[in-house]
């Protein structure tokens, strides 16, 4: 049985329908970390579908075991019995899909890391580490707060921010940034960015690129709210947004994300229903696995 039509149908559902469903739902803003996971799972399953569909189009008789076999043949590590030219095209096509992801991820990750390393080299000489604030303070009147994630992370506050905010508000800001670092949000961002680079015009990629940064901010807000009152974080946001100097988010085309975050912080705290969370967690696990099951039905294996 050729699974290519099923795979392509599934890819279409994940690539076009799934993002619309996600955007209409209200639960993602209530469980942002889970929602980010579901978006990434959609992206992974879409890529997998496309790669497997390319293989199946070229080798109509094959299922996954056959494919693994022909991979061996193509690489010259298996028994060399007649891998046709068409099969090779299929293998090459799916290899290109996989390679595009790897290259794109590496490109974005290394570029960001290079920018961070250059910044940190100067920061470590110019800034003053403050044990009390758990951050590096730089002499600058304009309020600013940001973090350099990665292996040698830094949280940076300008003296302007230190003067503007109260002690508790600074604590909430630092806690928010610590969440970004601890949860490796920069890697999720790079994954979203590289997926969007590979499938530029795909609705899933477009929406994922906009939604992931916002969801990660919300997840970091939630972490800060574990140790600071809602009002403190909200006031810090308003103060920093009015006095602060940060660039407009280039990824969040959806407009003022701070307002969305603030309304969420001030609104009644409610997590998505546990049953719904369970279903969505299962979705996150199952969507990338389904293409494999389609490509290789256990009955045929």
């Amino acid at each position, binding site marked *: 049985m050729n699974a290519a039509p099923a795979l392509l149908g599934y890819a279409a559902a994940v690539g076009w329908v799934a993002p619309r469903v996600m955007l209409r739902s209200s639960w993602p803003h209530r469980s942002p970390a889970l929602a980010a996971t579901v978006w990434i799972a959609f992206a992974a399953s879409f890529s997998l579908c496309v790669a497997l569909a390319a293989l199946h189009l070229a080798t109509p008789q094959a299922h996954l075991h056959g494919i693994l076999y022909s991979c061996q043949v193509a690489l010259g590590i298996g028994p060399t019995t007649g891998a046709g030219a068409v099969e090779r095209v299929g293998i090459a096509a799916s290899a290109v899909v996989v390679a595009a992801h790897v290259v794109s991820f590496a490109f974005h990750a290394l*570029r*960001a890391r290079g920018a961070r390393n250059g910044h940190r080299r100067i920061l470590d000489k110019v800034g003053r580490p403050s044990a009390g604030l758990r951050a590096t303070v730089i002499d600058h009147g304009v309020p*600013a707060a*940001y*973090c350099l994630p990665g292996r040698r992370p830094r949280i940076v506050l300008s003296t302007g921010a230190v003067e503007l905010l109260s002690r508790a508000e600074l604590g909430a800001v630092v806690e928010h*940034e610590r969440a970004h670092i601890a949860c490796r949000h920069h890697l999720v961002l790079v994954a979203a960015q590289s997926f969007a680079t590979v499938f530029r015009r795909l609705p899933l990629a477009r929406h994922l690129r906009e939604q992931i940064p916002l969801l990660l901010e919300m997840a970091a807000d939630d972490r800060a709210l574990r140790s600071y009152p809602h009002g403190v974080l909200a006031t810090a946001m308003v103060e920093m*947004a009015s006095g602060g*100097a*940060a660039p*407009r988010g280039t990824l969040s085309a959806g407009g003022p994300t701070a307002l969305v975050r603030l309304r969420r912080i001030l609104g009644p705290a409610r997590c998505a229903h546990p049953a719904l969370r369970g279903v969505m967690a299962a979705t996150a696990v199952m969507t990338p696995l389904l293409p494999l099951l389609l490509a290789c039905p256990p009955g045929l294996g």
Partner: protein
Amino acid sequence: MRWLGDLEAEILDCLWKWGRPATVREVVDDINTRRPSAYSTVMTVATILYNKGWLTREKQGRAWLYTPVRSREAYSAALMEDALGASEDRPAALAYFVERMTDEEVAALREALRTADRTAE
């Protein structure tokens, strides 16, 4: 090599604090008031900073007099410019607490905060 970076920061700190050219001996003496440090190590790191373009130096008698190339404020300003300059790449490199907003957006934020305060009362 974390300590090397720390020493770089410490040497620059001294020179910025004094605001005048200084010899390695003076810097070593200052550091020694807080913790022991070897003259040769500070000398090496000062040379590294010179080679990296952070310090200039001129001979006075047998010793070098070191001066920072730019003020701490100038570096801070450049750093902020780098951090806050809009770039496609920034979102993955740095994470800001909040983005810059227009006046209307800030007004909307304040309004949301006020409304919440009222309902809380």
